[in-house]
């Protein structure tokens, strides 16, 4: 089985972002970049499927030349090779889905698995848009994936618990946090990943226009909360909740 895994390069999610003073974007100076955490679950799931029943895991990342680093990190986790679609343009999810659809047509995989959302834009859009554009079924927020007989049975994380859905392959699946436990890359794998094939192409090479349907006009700070107070005892806490905040 061939599995295509789109991966995104994101600023370290554990560092609070600083906005540029003119609101035009985020100040990334001194910030390190990582593989989007949800995409690591997608890579792990794909690698486990291939380890069990054969095939290959192919990564794709879209962005500047820096994304090669992101791809190498993913290749060290067990993927065989990768595509780097180089562009300096900021693409929205609709444009990303167009690019992924072009790579999908080059590769004809049996399955696409990616993270349920990227932790920078928090959009949660591109995978479902890709499925729609390719007219493939989808199973988002996967908790458990079982494959067999040209079908996938997927338990999905939903409000209030789980549901179970059966889809035909090929299909698009997005990974949620309990799907698996992503492995750490060992040094020999990191060294090996440096020699794995990364095919660099431009949007023109793929023949996609990648037209964004949305545009971010500006970013602003959310309203800050008023400063709170430290109380000295449980008694004082309950008193304040009853008499000042009036919430008990």
């Amino acid at each position: 089985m061939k599995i295509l895994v789109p991966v995104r390069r994101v600023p370290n999610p554990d560092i609070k972002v600083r906005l540029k003073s003119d609101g035009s974007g985020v100040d990334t100076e001194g910030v390190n970049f990582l593989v989007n955490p949800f995409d690591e679950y997608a890579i792990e799931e794909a690698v486990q499927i291939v380890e069990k029943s054969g095939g290959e895991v192919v990564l794709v990342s879209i962005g500047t030349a820096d994304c090669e680093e992101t791809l190498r990190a993913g290749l060290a986790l067990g993927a065989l090779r990768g595509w780097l679609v180089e562009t300096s343009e900021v693409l929205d999810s609709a444009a990303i889905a167009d690019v992924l659809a072009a790579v999908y047509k080059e590769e004809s995989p049996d399955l696409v698995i990616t993270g349920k959302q990227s932790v920078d834009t928090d959009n949660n859009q591109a995978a479902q848009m890709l499925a729609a554009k390719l007219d493939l079924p989808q199973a988002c927020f996967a908790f458990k994936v079982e494959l067999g007989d040209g079908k996938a049975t997927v338990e999905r994380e939903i409000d209030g618990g789980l549901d179970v859905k059966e889809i035909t392959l090929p299909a698009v699946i997005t990974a949620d946090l309990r799907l698996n436990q992503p492995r750490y890359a060992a040094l020999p794998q990191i060294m090996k990943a440096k020699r794995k094939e990364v095919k660099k192409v431009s949007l023109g090479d793929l023949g996609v226009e990648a037209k964004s349907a949305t545009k971010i006009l500006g970013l602003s700070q959310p309203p800050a909360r008023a400063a709170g107070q430290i109380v000295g005892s449980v008694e004082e806490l309950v008193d304040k909740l009853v008499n000042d905040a009036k919430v008990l």
Partner: protein
Amino acid sequence: MSTLVIAEIRQSELRASSYNTIAAAKAKGGDFDILLLGKGSAAGADALKEFGAGTVYYSEADAVAEYTAESYAKTVAALVGEKGYTAVMMGATTTGKDMIPRLGGLLGAGMVSDVIGFDGANYLRPMFAGNAIATVEVNTPVAVMTVRETAFDAAAPSGGVSAVAEATAVGDDRAKFIEYRLTESSRPDLGAASIIVSAGRGVKDADGVKQVEALADLLGAAVGASRAVVDEGLLPNDLQVGQTGKIVAPDLYIACGISGAIQHVAGMKDSKVIVAINKDEEAPIFEVADYGLVADFAKAIPEFMEKVKAIK
């Protein structure tokens, strides 16, 4: 300029987020219709006919009796094509997050996730775990969006009676709904609760979780969790509050043993009153708390419960 609101039915019940989504359509302005799909949608349409919509559409046809993103997106796309809506919105529930981007893909429409407000023709939404608010422009004839329910107070009936009509359902046999496996709980839903008591890494074990649950039950509150607690298997995933879990904004949020990682704070910082109980006085949760108590939750909770019982 008109909007289609997708109201949500699950197991024949109208979900509360539907009322917040109607409020968002009213805040956006212009005319709106409502669409409900699935078993129970005829009754749901009846319940929503006095909320100011032009027409309330529904379908209980076999093709859409149970939710799949595939059949629902096709059915919505067909209605959008027929009626020429310029916006489609649904609550940012797991169903909205699953289906609306697929609809966007079918329609070639730009999408805005988690809309919290409108600025003229543009949309406001949080990014980077809520640490930035983006103003987003949509450049396609139709805009599709999910709306964050905590940003819009539930709509109330506004008088008048909408037309009620059946929509044409479109199926997709490559995707099949099998079953729900929902968590059984007698406590209120996270989204609907006015008080939430939440457990973090500091709540080390099942006994700690029991203490948090006991306090929640005394207050008639919902139980929430940080990711660490869910990863440990101490509480189910659907109780996870945060950037990638549930976004909540109750009247009172009591964080027990929660450090306050960026991802957790993103899910609860719009709560009206935040209480943090944590024995580490350096914990970042105290930066967003209205009332902070530096204490071990295991000692503080029993005392808290005693004091509350004394005044009730």
